[in-house]
């Protein structure tokens, strides 16, 4: 402690900027880790809390995925001996049109019995209406909203609220206001309760319920009751506690965690190199201090521990800052993720409270400190090896690690060989990820060697540009590879991260774009919701025939898509007229015979699955998959695998007849409409809106609009990726600033001598600028190469573990072309400060010894 106070603190105070910059990598790494995970956890927590609050005293829930089930199931459940209370529920998210309010979660319940499970705690109500369930039911425009909602919107009891219904915008009357807390605070308070049968009508749900909430009889164990109820209802219906919905949501959120983890690891790696770099230089600079300490009898272990303590402190400081920054960023990220989930999965959740899990913060702190200590370990060991005699002889440099370079190169080559070996065994996740790690580590360990090699090649070019300054800059890099290789490695990692993220983004756009072109080729898409991902509103089956009768329309393909559970994970089930689709769509077939697979699927003899379903669920053509439907368990062979990006968790295509039979649901949530050749599309769209707009709620999207919408979703998905790219570039720039600042300080004497022997100020400036540009160039070259490897691996991660996306390997040359001037420019810009510092420093101070 005393040493830290006497030796470290004055050093830190003197080099405050450098020390701060050093910890920047840790700050950003920890911040990204904390922000992404806190945001993910907050959204998940908000979702669980909503489930919990809506569940009330519900002990078990009966469901059949998003499709729901026929009303008759309710009586069956209510008649089971273990069931005390069972009430039906419908949930729908609707737009209110109130600016800034987003969606309102409407929960349809049967007010006759629902109060047995849920407390509405009405603070204000028209007693004759709300206190009397039947009167509430008798008036289908009745809704109860939360106090929070009223406070936000300025609405009060008996005010009218417009909500979107199947019959278009309709006014509802607020007949009760729930007190804050409990049920009222579910979905961030944006919650409305209405009669379930009115909800069925306004959302076009037919005679179906989404789920049944139940409480078991007193004295009956919930798990035992669950098993008996499940056995009585059969496998087509799932009987689970409300908490299981959180697990399903988590599966969807996992994709984001994965990408966040990769970015965090890279950012921390960058931080590791920055710290390593700074500490290595600090050891060199503080040789004299170390020598004095050793001469005074300080043991090697004390010196080593001193440097380790310093790196631990730097890690602690960086981690704490990173945690603060991460928590601050989490709110924005949570809002973004919540919105994205709402768009894509239709289960948008607002994380009103963003609270970091102390365990997560502890882990972030540990990772930050451990990374820093690990980075400081080599410099600390070198510091401990300082020979006091040599250290106290000014101008004499002790070569500490002659043998290390050879060893490092050997290890790097071995790792490279290991990585190549792992490629052949990469079908196993362990070897895949080992290969990934080894290849990155090998490139990093080879960085000093690569730096020396590349600088030698670069020297003539630099010399050609500026004979004196170019040679000086190149020599400076060659003479002190330790000083620059850490920064180059950090820079290379940043560049690789950007190349990886940019590459996956480019591949996704290209692949999804190609899919959209081939598969989504109808002229119009008619939906009951603003977006195709929302399925709250549905049309009756007959509506498709009505649309088909409109003049100018050649064909209508009714589609019912719904999310079902496949082995506990929500996947997308698309029920359509497969034969018609096969005639119109030329989807890329991964496995299967085009003619037979569509024909057999149309006959209900099997299903076609998407490529990502196949990859994520490890299902091959010919495998039999089991689908739990309300009317029984379906066992169907996989007849073909096609490229389809409708859903991140995978898609199953089946015939509508089969779906109707097993799900007892003949509603439609989208229609693919083809116009006759030569028909004016704009006029036809107008005709559709005029013909049906007054009768039902409908949205007619043109093909271009749908494509734009899907690309917008892709944009949203990559929205956070772009933030990560900015972070990576920022860290890279910080790395250059750090290195140059350190470099100038380190070369104070050398630069002083240069000026003393007549070097012009501009020559010194140019030397430093060229050195900065050279560091950036080295980082870019190695980064581009490492990025190519990184991209290969993350495309595979996306395929096997994230979204089952088989993305094409497309190197993002455009991004690389942008990075080149950006980082070179940043390097030059970063060099201005240090260069001016170098030319303005006191010669007397610089040449004190001489």
């Amino acid at each position: 402690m005393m040493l830290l106070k006497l030796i470290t603190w004055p050093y830190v105070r003197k080099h405050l900027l450098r020390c701060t910059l050093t910890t920047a990598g840790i700050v950003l790494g920890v911040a990204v880790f904390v922000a992404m995970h806190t945001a993910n956890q907050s959204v998940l927590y908000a979702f669980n809390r909503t489930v919990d609050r809506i569940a009330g005293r519900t002990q078990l829930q009966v469901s059949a995925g998003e499709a729901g089930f026929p009303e008759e199931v309710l009586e069956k459940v209510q008649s089971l001996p273990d069931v005390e209370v069972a009430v039906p529920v419908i949930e729908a998210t609707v737009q209110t049109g109130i600016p800034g309010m987003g969606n309102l979660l409407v929960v349809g319940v049967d007010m006759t019995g629902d109060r047995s499970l849920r407390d509405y705690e009405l603070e204000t109500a028209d007693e004759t209406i709300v206190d009397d369930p039947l009167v509430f039911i008798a008036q289908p425009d009745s809704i109860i909203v939360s106090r929070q909602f009223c406070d936000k919107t300025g609405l009060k009891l008996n005010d009218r609220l417009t909500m979107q219904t199947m019959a278009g915008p309709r006014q509802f009357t607020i007949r009760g206001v729930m007190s804050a807390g409990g049920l009222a605070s579910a979905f961030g308070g944006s919650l409305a309760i209405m009669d379930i049968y009115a909800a069925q009508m306004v959302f076009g749900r037919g005679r179906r319920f989404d789920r049944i909430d139940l409480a078991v009889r007193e004295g009956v164990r919930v798990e035992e009751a669950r098993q008996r109820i499940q056995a009585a209802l059969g496998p087509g219906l799932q009987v689970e506690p409300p908490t299981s919905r959180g697990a399903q949501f988590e599966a969807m959120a996992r994709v984001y965690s994965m990408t966040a983890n990769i970015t965090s690891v890279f950012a921390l790696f960058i931080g590791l190199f920055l710290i390593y770099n700074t500490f290595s230089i600090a050891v060199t600079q503080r040789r004299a201090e170390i020598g004095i300490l050793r001469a005074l009898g300080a043991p090697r272990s004390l010196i080593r521990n001193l440097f380790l303590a310093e790196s631990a402190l730097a890690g602690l400081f960086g981690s704490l800052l990173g945690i603060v920054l991460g928590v601050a960023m989490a709110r924005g990220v949570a809002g973004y993720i919540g919105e994205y989930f709402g768009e894509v999965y239709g289960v948008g959740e607002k994380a009103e409270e963003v609270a970091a899990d102390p365990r997560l913060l502890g882990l972030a702190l540990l990772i930050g400190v451990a990374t820093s200590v690990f980075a400081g370990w080599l410099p600390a060991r070198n510091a401990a090896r300082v020979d006091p005699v040599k250290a106290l002889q000014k101008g004499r440099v002790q070569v500490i690690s002659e043998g290390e370079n050879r060893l490092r190169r050997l290890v790097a080559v071995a790792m490279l060989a290991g990585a190549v070996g792992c490629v052949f065994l990469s079908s196993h996740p362990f070897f895949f990820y080992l290969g990934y790690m080894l290849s990155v580590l090998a490139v990093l360990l080879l960085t000093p060697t690569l730096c020396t090699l590349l600088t030698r090649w670069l020297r003539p070019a630099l010399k050609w540009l500026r004979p004196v300054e170019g040679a000086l800059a190149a020599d400076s890099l060659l003479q002190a590879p330790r000083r620059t290789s850490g920064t180059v490695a950090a820079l290379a990692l940043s560049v690789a991260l950007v190349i990886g993220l940019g590459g996956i983004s480019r591949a996704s756009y290209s692949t999804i774009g190609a899919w959209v072109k081939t598969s989504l080729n109808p002229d119009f898409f008619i939906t009951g919701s603003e977006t195709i991902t929302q399925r709250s509103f549905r049309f009756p089956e007959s509506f498709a025939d009505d649309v088909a009768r409109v003049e100018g329309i050649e064909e209508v393909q009714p589609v019912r898509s719904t999310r079902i559970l496949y082995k506990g994970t929500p996947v997308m089930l698309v029920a359509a007229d497969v034969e018609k689709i096969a005639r119109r769509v030329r989807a890329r077939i991964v496995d299967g015979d085009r003619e037979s697979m569509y024909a057999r699927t149309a006959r209900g003899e099997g299903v076609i699955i998407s490529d990502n379903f196949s990859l994520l669920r490890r299902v091959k053509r010919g495998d039999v998959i089991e689908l739990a439907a309300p009317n029984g368990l379906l066992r169907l062979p996989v007849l073909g695998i096609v490229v389809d990006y409708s859903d991140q968790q995978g898609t199953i295509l089946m015939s509508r007849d089969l779906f109707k039979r097993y799900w007892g649901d003949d509603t439609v949530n989208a229609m693919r409409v083809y116009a006759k050749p030569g028909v004016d599309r704009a006029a036809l769209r107008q005709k559709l809106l005029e013909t049906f707009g007054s009768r039902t709620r409908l949205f007619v999207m043109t093909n271009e609009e749908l494509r734009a919408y899907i690309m917008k979703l892709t944009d949203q998905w990559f929205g956070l990726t772009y933030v990560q790219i900015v972070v990576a570039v920022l860290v890279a720039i910080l790395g250059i600033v750090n290195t140059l600042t350190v470099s100038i300080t380190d070369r104070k004497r050398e630069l002083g001598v240069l000026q003393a022997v007549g070097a012009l100020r501009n020559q010194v400036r140019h030397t430093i600028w060229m050195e900065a540009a050279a560091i950036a160039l080295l980082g870019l070259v190695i980064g581009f190469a490492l990025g190519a490897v990184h991209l290969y691996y993350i495309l595979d991660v996306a395929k096997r573990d994230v979204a089952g996306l088989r993305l094409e390997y497309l190197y993002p040359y455009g991004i690389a072309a942008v990075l080149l001037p950006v980082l070179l420019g940043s390097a030059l810009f970063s060099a201005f400060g240090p260069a001016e510092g170098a030319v303005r420093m006191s010669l007397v101070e610089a040449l004190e010894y001489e």
Partner: protein
Amino acid sequence: MSKAWAVLLVAAAVVRAQDARSIVEESQRRARSGSQRYEGTLEVIDAKRKVTTKRWIYERLGSAGNSKAVLRFTAPAEVKGVALLIHNHPDRASDQWMWTPAVQRERRIAYQDRKTRFFGTDFTFEDLEERDVDRSTYRMLGEEAIEGVPCWKIESTPKPEARSQYTRLYLWIRKPDYVAAQIDCFQRDRVIRRIRYSDVEKVQNIWTARRIEVHDLTRDSRTILRLEKLEYDVTLPADLFTLQALRRER
């Protein structure tokens, strides 16, 4: 509705000393009629003494736990047309469906919901059932006068298969005419609901209470039902008591 418990209890029998069960049986026998029709006026007085009024028409075919009944609201406007169809069974709890014209839907009232309040009144759905005498066991507790009229005080305990919300009931049956004077409904050891029958009149040779007051002791609210235009043995078509008929009547 007025006959829910009265039907159980109002009857005539031998005037001699009897056991508890036979008194209840006699009460039920005396109240028996082929059908019934009345217009009811409901006054609900909540804990804050706010009064709301509703009106309905009640029609019943059959009696003594083997009957069908339709109750249709006529006022106020917000509940007009809402109806309840009850199929009473002698051996099990009744089947009940509610019809809501605004959504054109009938909904089944589950057994579990029978303890919930009916139409914002202090009656529960269970209180609307006609129960056969065999669905409870009885014990004579003694004799007590209610409003000056001598009564038998009988404890009635619903059998488990009745799936009643009540643990037991205390019935006061008027000695002179076998009409129920009061019923105390217990949940465990607490009286939660008290039903008082008054304005007893002879209508078409059946002694009937024309005023029924239910006091919910937990909420401290009261519901008073007055029976008007009461008729027995009116001609009512059987198909009036079906779901199809509910859907037709809008």
